[in-house]
């Protein structure tokens, strides 16, 4: 069927900021969709609040709005742009919810906007629990039995019908408090009794438990002709009970016979047809490991994380084709873009095994609850492809960058702990299983504990068993081939052979034990295919043909994690494009299935491989590129630079020596001294005594951090000697091998600058000012462009220092600098000789294509020849803010206090003509609701009380009510600010936690972080706020910013002053 001609303009809604559960996969899907729609000749209007994405580049859509995805703003854009249609299924749950909200508000009808792809009613039928059950019953597709009970007697009746085990979920309790799985009557009575008590409405949902079933997913597509296909099926390594986003997933399914495969395929196709979805859909099913009994768990009527994974696992671009289906094209008339010769109406055949392992943020959040369950906790994922399961999973393990190259534990563990960690799934279960097998625990026992299919456990056992063979046969040719075919890393071989990684690598190379590259072609080689998408494996035939063109390899940034988000993929993609523009062959290596950079249509060649030195070197050995670009792939790529240089690889751009000079503290200090640029005073301590002395010398407050930890972990600001001692005792181990850095903490404005240098000219696209004072990680601060409070002298100084640093450090390419402005002085805190988090934000605001320019500079072009001159690019009109977004609600037990350690998962942009308006948009887009009246709960540390007073006063003037505990309240009362006093935690029924729980406060300001009891109370207040969805601010600067917004939205309400001086002034 031809495409629709009744529509011309299509609105696409993006997924907004990166949060846990909604990450870069929607940048990939959205970008593909926008390009696909443009390809078909439609005008595309895009709205997305996330600036760190490729999809919000102005080339991707005809019009790009980086605005909050809220009813208010989307309606405004619809009224302005008058699109004919809306495509809601590519922006994750955010996009879908927005479409539903727009429909419910009547905006779509009012403006005559049609919904493309899938009817909203179908979306509702897939997402509403009751409607979904009804639909499944109509279709005769089984769903687990469930019922709502109000008494133990009702619970017993239910169990009589469905039998044990059952899951109990008390209604309206947070995080499933009071629920559990019951296997017998005793447990049922106990848990239901407790559950009814903890539920405010005295209800429990009982559901037949299918925990332990195989979890299988099908990615299906359907067009308006009712043609429906399965793109990919996947089997979760972890059985039902763990969110699929937190499960290790294997594609295709491994333990399903054809009958089981087809049975579940039929169910999936039946469902997508019943829902009349036009596009892609994900169906999750649970299959009894001992019968043909299965249940439908969930249906996602849109593209999803799983569809991104399926696209990368098969090569079949689901989002692109889903967008074309949405405008009326059918599967039988579209070509399969991978082969170019066969049709899209086709089910990919894989001839390899794909493994996905999630990447969790627990390295950043050590206190977080690491138990995995139905709430997703991972921030990203890695994927690996192999010709054996063993190869695929071990390649995935070393892609994780978790410091491990094998299924082993980093630290010793007791047998008891191992069993515990296998029984209760956590992020490290795979590694504990490896260790258990190594200690001789039987496969059956591990199966009993984990319910993981014996197939997978046998495979893991094979890996572990082979370690012994390897140990006994060092440097044995045949055995080494076998080991590499099983995915063993050189690091692991080196450990077993008592040598180093490099020796293993060189020995292998000498023996010709190197991988070949096979194509991901959707068709298992049945048809010829020119897709430049490869993975490495140890077999005979290499399919990756090296061309005569000069090539450049770009290293990607691996899995998305806190501190290394989608912005690095953005820069990677732009670098690849720039390399292509410059006429070279652009080759990318990356392992993240969610991203745009791993879309095979981006680069000339895509190698889906681990970013470990051996895997990168194999590709370089084959391709012999003129050089490797490491600047855009975040710390992942930078960390490989030294090893690459050791192996004789040419690093393009800033040299390794200069990279090191920026990152090594001593060398950096020397460089700064030579350049005459000040930095906060600081010294390195190797003992507690020395630390105390240094701190005395510098003067409190001081910033302390261990030198051996990257990324701000365990960094703290201490104000007093006893705090320093507490820190030294509890937070770090200090000794000559593990020194602690002590720096003067400057209270001042934090400034961030990104610049591009070609060695001669230094272009500074813009300066950003942080709202939060120094001490809050730059990634967690609100950044403002252009700076609002810097004098021209300061700006000049910043420009001068930046140019000096760029030249002095011999930067070729990008650099990012953080400054503190204290009084009239500017100090350098940090220089990152690479792409940064703010590159996409600044590129979009200033229209300076930073990653592109930097790449061209790296390739030898002068900035002048590209039309740029040294210095600060003239400031753009308007104000732009970057507001961080956190995923705290999904990470229990994590303290949300902002500090030197980064905690945010994503960001949004707000733009307008005044700071207040821009802030309003940014805050709203980040999910903070700003109301013109309400109550603020104020609990602040003693040191902050004076400052808090000012803020309280202003809130009060806006008509906000203040709530505080007695200490803070008495100060407010003294200052004449009306305040409602509440009890402290632990006292009476109506203490401040109740205030939060009952929704009496719209905003919580809390700075209680120091000292044992306040810290504990402060922590409870903050978590309570998060769990009740109430914004909790831990920096008075953020509070002040919100206040400014509120003040700008409201008129003041102040009584007339008596004998006002201004009158006199006015009359004179």
């Amino acid at each position, binding site marked *: 069927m031809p495409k629709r001609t009744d529509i011309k303009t299509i609105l696409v809604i993006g997924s907004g900021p990166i949060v846990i559960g909604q990450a870069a996969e929607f940048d990939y899907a959205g970008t593909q969709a926008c390009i696909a729609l443009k390809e078909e000749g439609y005008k595309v209007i895009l709205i997305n609040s996330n600036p760190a994405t490729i999809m919000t580049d102005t080339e991707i859509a005809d019009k790009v709005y980086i605005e909050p995805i809220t009813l208010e703003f989307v309606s405004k854009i619809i009224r302005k742009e008058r699109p004919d249609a809306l495509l809601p299924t590519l922006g994750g749950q955010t996009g879908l919810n927005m479409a539903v909200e727009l429909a419910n508000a009547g905006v779509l009808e009012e403006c005559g906007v049609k919904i493309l792809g899938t009817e909203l009613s179908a979306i509702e039928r897939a997402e509403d629990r009751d409607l979904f059950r009804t639909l499944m019953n109509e279709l005769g597709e089984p769903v687990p039995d469930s019922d709502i009970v109000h008494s133990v007697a009702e619970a017993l009746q239910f169990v009589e019908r469905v039998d044990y085990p059952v899951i109990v979920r008390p209604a309206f309790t947070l995080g499933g408090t009071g629920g559990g799985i019951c296997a017998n009557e005793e447990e049922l009575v106990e848990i239901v009794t407790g559950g009814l008590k903890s539920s405010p409405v005295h209800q429990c949902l009982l559901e037949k438990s299918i925990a332990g079933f195989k979890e299988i997913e099908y990615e299906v597509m359907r067009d308006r002709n009712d043609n429906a296909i399965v793109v990919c099926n996947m089997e979760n390594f972890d059985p039902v009970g763990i969110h699929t986003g937190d499960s290790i997933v294997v594609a295709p399914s491994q333990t399903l016979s054809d009958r089981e495969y087809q049975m579940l395929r039929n169910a999936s196709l039946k469902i997508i047809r019943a829902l009349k979805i036009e596009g892609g859909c994900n169906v999750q099913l649970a299959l009894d490991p001992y019968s043909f009994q299965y249940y439908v768990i969930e249906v996602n009527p849109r593209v999803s994380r799983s569809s991104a994974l399926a696209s990368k696992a098969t090569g079949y671009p689901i989002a692109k084709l889903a967008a074309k289906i949405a405008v009326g094209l059918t599967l039988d008339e579209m070509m399969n873009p991978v082969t170019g010769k066969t049709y899209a109406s086709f089910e990919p055949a894989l001839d390899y095994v794909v493994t996905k392992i999630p990447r969790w943020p627990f390295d950043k959040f050590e206190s977080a609850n690491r138990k995995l369950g139905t709430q997703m906790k991972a921030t990203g994922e890695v994927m690996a492809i192999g010709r*054996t399961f063993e190869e695929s999973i071990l390649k995935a393990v070393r892609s994780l960058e978790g410091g491990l190259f094998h299924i082993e534990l980093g630290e010793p563990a007791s047998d008891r702990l191992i069993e515990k960690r296998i029984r209760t799934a956590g992020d490290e279960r795979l590694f504990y299983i490896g260790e258990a097998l190594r200690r001789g625990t039987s496969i059956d026992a591990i199966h009993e504990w984990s319910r993981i299919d014996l197939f997978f456990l046998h495979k893991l056992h094979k890996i572990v068993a082979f370690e012994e063979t390897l140990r006994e046969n060092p440097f044995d040719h045949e055995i080494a081939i076998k080991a590499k075919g099983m995915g063993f890393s050189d690091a692991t071989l080196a450990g077993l052979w008592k040598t180093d990684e490099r020796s293993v690598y060189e020995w292998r190379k000498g023996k010709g034990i190197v991988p070949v590259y096979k194509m991901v072609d959707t068709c298992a080689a049945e048809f010829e295919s020119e897709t430049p998408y490869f993975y490495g494996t140890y*077999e005979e035939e290499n399919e990756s043909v090296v061309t005569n063109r000069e090539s450049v390899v770009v290293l990607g940034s691996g899995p998305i994690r806190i501190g290394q988000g989608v912005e690095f993929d953005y820069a990677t993609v732009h670098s690849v494009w720039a390399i292509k523009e410059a006429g070279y062959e652009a080759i990318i290596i990356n392992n993240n299935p969610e991203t745009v950079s791993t879309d095979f249509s981006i680069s000339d060649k895509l190698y889906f491989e681990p970013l470990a030195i051996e895997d990168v070197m194999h590709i370089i050995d084959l391709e012999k590129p003129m050089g490797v670009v490491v600047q855009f792939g975040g710390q992942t790529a930078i960390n490989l630079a030294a090893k690459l240089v050791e192996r004789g690889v040419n690093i393009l751009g800033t040299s390794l020596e200069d990279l090191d000079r920026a990152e090594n503290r001593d060398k950096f200090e020397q460089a700064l001294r030579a350049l005459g640029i000040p930095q906060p005073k600081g010294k390195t301590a190797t003992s507690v005594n020395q630390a105390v002395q240094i701190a005395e010398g510098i003067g409190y407050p001081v910033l302390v951090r261990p030198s051996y930890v990257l990324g701000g972990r365990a960094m703290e600001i201490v104000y007093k000697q006893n705090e320093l001692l507490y820190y030294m005792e509890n937070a770090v181990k200090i000794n000559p091998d593990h020194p602690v850095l002590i720096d003067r903490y400057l209270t001042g404005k934090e400034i961030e600058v990104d610049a591009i240098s070609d060695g001669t000219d230094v272009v500074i696209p813009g300066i950003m000012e942080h709202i939060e004072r120094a001490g809050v990680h730059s990634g967690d601060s609100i950044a403002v462009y252009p700076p609002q409070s810097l004098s021209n002298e300061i700006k000049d100084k910043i420009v001068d220092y930046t140019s000096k640093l760029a030249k002095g450090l011999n930067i070729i390419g990008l650099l990012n600098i953080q400054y503190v402005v204290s009084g009239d002085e500017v100090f350098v805190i940090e220089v990152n000789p690479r792409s940064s988090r703010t590159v996409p934000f600044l590129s979009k605001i200033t229209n300076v294509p930073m990653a592109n320019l930097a790449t061209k500079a790296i390739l030898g072009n002068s900035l002048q020849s590209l039309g740029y001159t040294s210095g600060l690019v003239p400031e753009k009109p308007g104000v732009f803010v970057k507001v961080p977004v956190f995923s705290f609600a999904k990470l229990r037990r994590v303290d949300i206090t902002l500090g030197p350690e980064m905690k945010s998962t994503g960001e949004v942009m707000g733009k307008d003509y005044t700071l207040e308006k821009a802030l309003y948009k940014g805050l709203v887009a980040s999910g903070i609701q700003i109301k013109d009246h309400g109550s603020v709960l104020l609990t602040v540390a003693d040191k902050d009380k004076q400052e808090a007073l000012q803020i309280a006063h202003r809130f009060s003037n806006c008509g906000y009510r203040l709530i505080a505990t007695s200490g803070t309240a008495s100060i407010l009362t003294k200052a004449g600010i009306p305040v409602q006093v509440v009890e402290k935690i632990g006292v009476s029924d109506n203490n401040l936690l109740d205030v939060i729980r009952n929704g009496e406060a719209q905003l919580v300001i809390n700075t209680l972080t120091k000292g044992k009891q306040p810290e504990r109370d402060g922590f409870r207040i903050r978590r309570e706020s998060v769990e009740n969805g109430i914004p909790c601010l831990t920096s008075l600067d953020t509070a002040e910013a919100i206040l400014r917004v509120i003040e700008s939205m409201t008129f003041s309400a102040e009584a007339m002053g008596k004998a006002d001086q201004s009158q006199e002034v006015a009359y004179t």
Partner: protein
Amino acid sequence: MKRQLILEDGTVFKGEAFGSDTDKIGEVVFNTGMTGYQEILSDPSYCGQIVTLTYPLIGNYGINRDDFESINPAISGFIVKEAADCPSNWRNEISLDEMLKSKGIPGISGIDTRKLTRIIRRHGTLKGAICRIEKKPEEIIEQLKATVAPTDQVKRVSTKTAYPSPGRGKRIALVDFGMKHGILRELNDRDCDVVVLPYNVTASEILLLNPDGVMLSNGPGNPKDVPEAIEMIQGIQGKVPLFGICLGHQLFALANRADTEKMKFGHRGSNHPVQDLRTGKVALTSQNHGYTVQRESIERTNLEVTHIALNDKTIEGLKHKEYPAFTVQYHPEASPGPVDANYLFDEFLSMIESEKEEGEAKCQNVQI
């Protein structure tokens, strides 16, 4: 133990032995299905062929009691990247290795099956041998070149005698050219009263059974090697409603003076899109054929093309313009593969139904 696979073009793959310890020669073909190895290796259409599966992990769910498509697998050899030694599935009874051993089928694992597939794709189907590692490749290659392709596969796999598979519904004469159990299963599921007949059954023998319909099964090899069947079809078409699958489809075409030809490497897999030219709809089908009905030859017949392969536009379905007869090149019985085309069995039965009604109407007309 090591073993080798030698192709007539001189390529030698060295791998691990599994299955039976015998040397075998056959035509090497690949199948792209990711599941269904048990059905594939027991599909009689692979008689005399050595099958490689493109999916690298084979045997994961073992071999069960239920999923055989014939009692005695007719394939000559089995080639995989990896044969699972610890299968896991609740229906698993024995491992792939054990099964092949018990049926005298040699297997080879641990070779680059993608390389092999690409050779077949470029070169077309070729002869090969699975043999002991000691054998000299030159000798084997000579032997391969000298080997004449067999022509008696249908005779080898067809039933020797007729037998019933009773039901209370319509009587179907099912001609077994190397029938997959799946066809019988589909007919039995519809309560048909089936009589399975050997491939060389004559038209009059069929008519004596007074069937409501005749089903022509799938089977191995070149349709031109079974001239007796062509004659049989000519004798029954127009007299009894007819439905043919795979080899049955090709024989039906030949019986109607169309021609068939050998394909470069055939269609073997579970993901072949087939378009129904009457509705435009696409079904994903299970296929296994190395011959196809020649497109141009249809023009001189009384046949109509009803289905085509979406990708290479080869003929996938035919219908007689006058008689109640239709055939498909693919496998509506699936096993293995998608059941998208399963409705064809129902269409067959409803065709029989409407023929009967028409017949009765005709009779009535005659009476008047």
